[in-house]
Each structure stands twice: as structure tokens, then as C-alpha cells.
């Protein structure tokens, strides 16, 4: 079964086509990256997949149900989102932030012990239990990103959707986040990440959807998706592709701009 499926989805905002006839299906338990240049429509795609934005036409299906037939709570129970950047001026602790992810699972007006246990387990899984009582707004970018990932873990949805999870992070934090995503995928979660760093993405993810100007220009596994020509068309610069000693892809950006 597909966890996420888009059929001929178009999205028009302020008389501008943001997404144009997008169709793809992502099988349950798989790990995919969506890549494309800035302004390609990747973040809009995340909003469409969570029904924050309604498509102008086409159909979005989540775990075989039309998204229009799902309540917002049901969508949240199916898809957890890790935004690229979330800041707040309010003095929320890390535990408060993670605990709020249990909203979709608990219809009661109060927080249950089960909620607290799930939040603590998520913090433990993300290895940030020691930050539990820290104020979220005082954390570093890497710590904030890990807290948002812990929040997604506590939300306990089938699909984890990430918007540029490694942007603004140093190499160590990038690797830690990607390892965590890989572990979650190994545990059976479907992971869909919008990525900018292709070199990092190919080390952990095998399946790719390439978007440019609101259209899918290629999708599939690494071997079938990437070619120097496609990347040149995608980013409007020449890109050289190499393989390292482990036969993993390495992309070298050429200096010459087309």
C-alpha cells in the first residue's frame, strides 16, 4: 500500500502555478528525498500533503484515503511534519514542545500519563533527554532540529515529512539527524525529506523525486534518477558526478555556469 499518493495535483496561488500536474506514489515503509532548486515548489508540496494548502485540482491520498475525507486530527495521526525552522518567543520547555505532539492522539482536555510517557520515550530515542527542561528558544539550531524530530517521533505517525532537516546544521549534526531518520525508517516509518544537500541525501536515501518549477522531471532510485544532464537542467549549472571508493555517488559542482 502507498502511504502517500498524488494524482495530477496542481496548485495555483495568486495566479501563479506553483505545482503543475504532480503525480507520484510512495510505498509504505520507504525513504524518499524530494530535491530541486529554490522555488521549485517543494515546501508547497509539504503543505499540500498535510492539507494546510488545498490543491487547485487533483487528488491527494494518505494511506489509501482521500485527504479531503480525513479530519485534521486524522491527517496528523498519519503524517508528522518536521519544519525546516521553527522558533518561538514563548518560554516553552523542550518537554512542552514534544508533549504537544500528542494532541492528535488524546481527545481529552488534559494531558495523560500515556502522553508524558510517549514524550519521554521520544526524547530518549532522539538522545536529548538531558535537554528536557531547557527552554526551546535557548537551544542551538542542531538541538532545535533534534527536538522537532523528537516531536515527530512522539506524534507516532506512519509518515514523517521533513522540510530541509539539515539546513543550518554543521556536519556532525547533519549526520546525526540523517542517522536518526535512517533508524526511524528501519523501524518501519515512511520518511519523506525535502533536501538541498544531494551529497548528504544519497548517503542515506535511495529514492528521489526531482522537481523543477512545479513539475516532476524525474523520479526513482539513485541509479536511474541522477545524470549530469538532469542535474545541469535542474540547477542551470554544470555538475560532474563521481563515485567514491564505496561506489557511492559524489557530485562535484563545476565552476562554469551555463
Amino acid at each position: 500500500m502507498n502511504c502517500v499518493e498524488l494524482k495530477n495535483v496542481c496548485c495555483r496561488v495568486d495566479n501563479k502555478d506553483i505545482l503543475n500536474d504532480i503525480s507520484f506514489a510512495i510505498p509504505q515503509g520507504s525513504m524518499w528525498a524530494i530535491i530541486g532548486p529554490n522555488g521549485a515548489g517543494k515546501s508547497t508540496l509539504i503543505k499540500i500533503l498535510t492539507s494546510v494548502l488545498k490543491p487547485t485540482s487533483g487528488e491527494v491520498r494518505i494511506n489509501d484515503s482521500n485527504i479531503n475525507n480525513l479530519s485534521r486530527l486524522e491527517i496528523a495521526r498519519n503524517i508528522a511534519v518536521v519544519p525546516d525552522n521553527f522558533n518561538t518567543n514563548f518560554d516553552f520547555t523542550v518537554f512542552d514542545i514534544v508533549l504537544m505532539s500528542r494532541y492528535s492522539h488524546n481527545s481529552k482536555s488534559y494531558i495523560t500519563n500515556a502522553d508524558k510517557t510517549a514524550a519521554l520515550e521520544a526524547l530518549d530515542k532522539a538522545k536529548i533527554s538531558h535537554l528536557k527542561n531547557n527552554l526551546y528558544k535557548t537551544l542551538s539550531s542542531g538541538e532545535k532540529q533534534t527536538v522537532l524530530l523528537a516531536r515527530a517521533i512522539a506524534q507516532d505517525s506512519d509518515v514523517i515529512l521533513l522540510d530541509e532537516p539539515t539546513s543550518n546544521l554543521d556536519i556532525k549534526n547533519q549526520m546525526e539527524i540523517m542517522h536518526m531518520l535512517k533508524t526511524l525508517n528501519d523501524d518501519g516509518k515512511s520518511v519523506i525529506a525535502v533536501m538541498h544537500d544531494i551529497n548528504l541525501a544519497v548517503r542515506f536515501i535511495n529514492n528521489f523525486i526531482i522537481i523543477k518549477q512545479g513539475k516532476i522531471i524525474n523520479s526513482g532510485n539513485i541509479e536511474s534518477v541522477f545524470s549530469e544532464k538532469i542535474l545541469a537542467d535542474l540547477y542551470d549549472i554544470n555538475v560532474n558526478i563521481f563515485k567514491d571508493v564505496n561506489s557511492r555517488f559524489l557530485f562535484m559542482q563545476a565552476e562554469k555556469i551555463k
Partner: protein
Amino acid sequence: MKKIHIFIFSSISIFLILLYTAAGTADIAFFDTFKILASKFNSSFSGFSTSKEIIILNIRLPRVLLSYISGACLALCGCGYQSVFKNPLSDPFILGVSSGAALGATLSIVLNMPNTLLGLNITALMAFFGAVITVFIVFAIYENSQRNSTSSLLLIGIAIGQFITAVISVLMLLNQDNIKDIYFWTLGSFAAKSWPHLAVVSVYFVIGFCFMMHNSKNLDIMLLGSQEAQYLGQDIYKVRRHILVITSLLAAGVVSVTGIIGFIGLVTPHVVRIFTGPMHKKLMVCSVFTGGIFLMTADTIARSALKFELPVGIITAIFGAPFFIYLIYSSKREVL
């Protein structure tokens, strides 16, 4: 919120209610007040003059309790408004409740309406309907504007409020004999309020408090912003509408009885948030106690500090503003 905190807040509240009931310009000995109150439960304390009993039981006690409950209501509304708008300047009157109520009261005064109708105070009724109609006009314009941002709602509320304030000014200029009555109504007062007023506001409070506590998780999530709230599963537009309608009705109910009392709804949640943090269950319970104590204290000062009674709104601002600024300076936490 631990039970010990509720116990401490409750104990302080009861102590102050008794203390403030004993305070006043009438010559009643301090301990006689407690004896008069106790005489209702134990006949061995009876034997005081009827006038003293009336002052304590029918004038001071309901007034003190009314100011307490009104402060609690306004603080509760402030918590709701500041969460929905994520704006530190939001208070229960930002959507035109106060100006609508003032217009209703002004109309009843300038039209020389009878004081009561079927036992109900006409000025209070007019103020209530003025507030409610204004809020619904603001909402109707907002909903038809096809906009989703709270900033638009805020601006529509401010614009309508300013428009109504201008209408009130015109009515005051055309009816200069009534300017004093209208002006004093807008400053708010608990003078001449008794048990029926307390009963009405208490009903508003119980309904509002139950609703807001039921929505405490919704209010927490709303502080994250509309997109995050939706990611976590909240139907933010529906929840936002419900909270604003209920808090506006609550504010309208209080204002119609007491007149416009500013500062409590704006400042109390900020002050309490410094100590409790932003999670609403704790914030709202502490705000209810703090708002109640704040307004009750202000009203006691208003009625007993000088030989004549001051409008309570003046006291809340004179004492509240410096205290608030002190807290902002001394607090390690951001106010918002």
C-alpha cells in the same frame, strides 16, 4: 498546577476578601465585620444594628466578591486573546467589546431610558447588546473578507472600535448634560452593585472558566502559530472562532455590569506568565486568582483611599503600570 499552589492562592483570596470587606469609610470596627459575617452561620454572634449588617452583608461583601470575580473573568479573557492573537497588546477589548458596550450604555443614558425593565438594569442590558453586536459585526466583516490572518481580525476590531468611539463622542457633544454620566460609566465602577450582579457575573465566569480549561491544550498549541498548529492536528480556524466568541461574550457580560475596566485583562496574563511559563492550564488558573486579587485590591483602594470614590480603572492603571514595568525589568524571562 499543584494542589498546594491552589490551596495557597485560595487561602490568600479568602483572607483578602475578609480583610477588604472590613475596609471602608463607614465606622464599623474591624472585628465586628467578622462577627457580622459569622452571625449568618452562628446566631451567638448576632446583635448588631441592621444598618451595619446591611453595609457588610449587602453592600461591601457582594461588591468585594463581584470585583474578585470580574477580575478573574477579565484575566481569563486576556489569556485567551493573547494566545489567539500571539500579540502582547491583545486584551479582552481589542475586538470592540468595550467601545460597543460604551455605545450601548451611552444610548441608554442619552435616550433617558428607564432604569429597569422587568427587574433588569437597562444600561447594563444595552451595554451587553452593544458589545455583542459589535463583536459579531467585526467577525462578520472578517469572515467575509476571506482572510485567515489574525492581524486582519485585529485591525478590523481596532477600526470598528475607533469608529464607535467617534460615534460616542458625537453623542456626548450633542448631549452635553449627560457627559459626566457617560464618562464615569466608561471608567468602570463597582458602586451600588449587589448580589444579583454578582450572581450574573458568576454564571458568566463558571461557563467561561470551564470552556477555557477544556480548551487549554488548544490554547497551548495556538501559540506555536497557525501552520504548526495544523501540523499537530488542530482545526485552528474553528478553535480560534470558538475561543474568541466565548471570551468576547464573557468580556461583554462583565463590562455590561461593571463598566470598562482596563489593564487587568492586558497585564495579568503577562505577569503570571513570567512565573508559570506559557502552558495554559497553569497560566489560566493562576491568572484567575491573580486577576481577582488585583481588581479586588484596586476597588478597595478606589472606595476607601479618599473621602470620595475613585473610578476603579484609574487605580488599576496607576498601581498596575509601575508594577508591570518593574516585573519586566526584574524578570529573567521574556514577558512574551
